[in-house]
């Protein structure tokens, strides 16, 4: 009986058969512990904190687009109640003022949108309203970008392009301190 030389280096190979098992084990571990979180949302830049309230009395009323959301989740835009489906179009009309109306913004650069809510307002409603206001600006940027550069607006565009568009239509959205109505007890 010839003893096979186990130290034969030429035919010594690591058995890779169990590799699949190890990989499966890891795979199943990750499958079980995974929670694929949808990390998406509306990005907002908050204004820096200051003790005194901003003074908006100096602004011409034609340049201010006041949006109020009350504790019953009703919408009041410039003193008139409005359905949320209309908000986007009305906001766009206010900003660009295509027919040069006396009561809408003089120029897009002067337009200011103010958003005010109650402490009892539903968060969902608030996000929806914010979403519509942001959508109005996003659509205007898209339109302008298509006119100027032939592409839709996105964060991947060169900085100079983005700046030239944001200079013409800056997004000015100020949020007032909420009123205390409807807070949960």
């Amino acid at each position, binding site marked *: 009986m010839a003893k096979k030389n186990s130290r034969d280096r030429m035919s010594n190979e690591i058995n890779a058969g169990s*590799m699949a098992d190890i990989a499966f084990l890891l795979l199943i571990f990750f499958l079980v512990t995974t929670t694929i979180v949808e990390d*998406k949302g509306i990005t907002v*830049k908050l204004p820096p904190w200051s003790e005194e309230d901003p003074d908006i009395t100096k602004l011409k009323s034609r340049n201010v687009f006041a949006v109020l959301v009350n504790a019953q989740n009703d919408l009041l835009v410039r003193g008139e109640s409005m359905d949320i489906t209309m908000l986007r179009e009305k906001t766009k009309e206010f900003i660009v003022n295509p027919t040069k109306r006396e009561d809408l913004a003089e120029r897009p650069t002067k337009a200011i949108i103010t958003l005010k809510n109650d*402490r009892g307002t539903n968060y969902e409603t608030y996000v929806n309203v914010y979403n519509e206001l*942001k959508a109005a600006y996003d659509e205007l940027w898209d339109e302008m970008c298509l006119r100027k550069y032939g592409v839709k607006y996105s964060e991947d565009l060169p900085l100079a392009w983005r700046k030239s568009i944001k200079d013409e239509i800056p997004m000015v959205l100020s949020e007032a301190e909420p009123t205390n109505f409807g807070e949960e007890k």
Partner: protein
Amino acid sequence: MSKFSKGKKKPSPAISTASLPDIVFMLLFFFMVVTKLRDSELMVKVTTPFATQLTKLEDKSLVNYLYIGRPVEKYKATYGTKPRLQLSDKFANVNEIPIFLERFRVKIPEAQRSKITTSLRVDGKVTMGIVQDVKTELRKANQLKINYSAKKKPE
């Protein structure tokens, strides 16, 4: 010479499993990349609202999360049903936010600290009161980049 010889049977070729590890590893890496190991158990119920104008949070290591919602069934007896704030793995008061942010901030290299985003994962059914308090606290702590977490609205 016939093409279909009945005589000798060829042994049926076994399917090679040599590439199986590769396939499995590929899947494994995919899951490892998309995974975010949840570091905290959710003690509040959070169902984020729907929206359309979404931006994706790119660098997850620069994101910290605040959860606001009503306590889940298990904690209702002790904490009631009012909306609460959860920081990492426990209920917290609004005034604990600055410490929470600072703890996160020191772990980030100084050059990247301005890019830290706070993701507000807020239940759609809570009222704005607590959200407003949190926002005020974030402004005071000079953490101005925030993200209202939301899901894509189905068409």
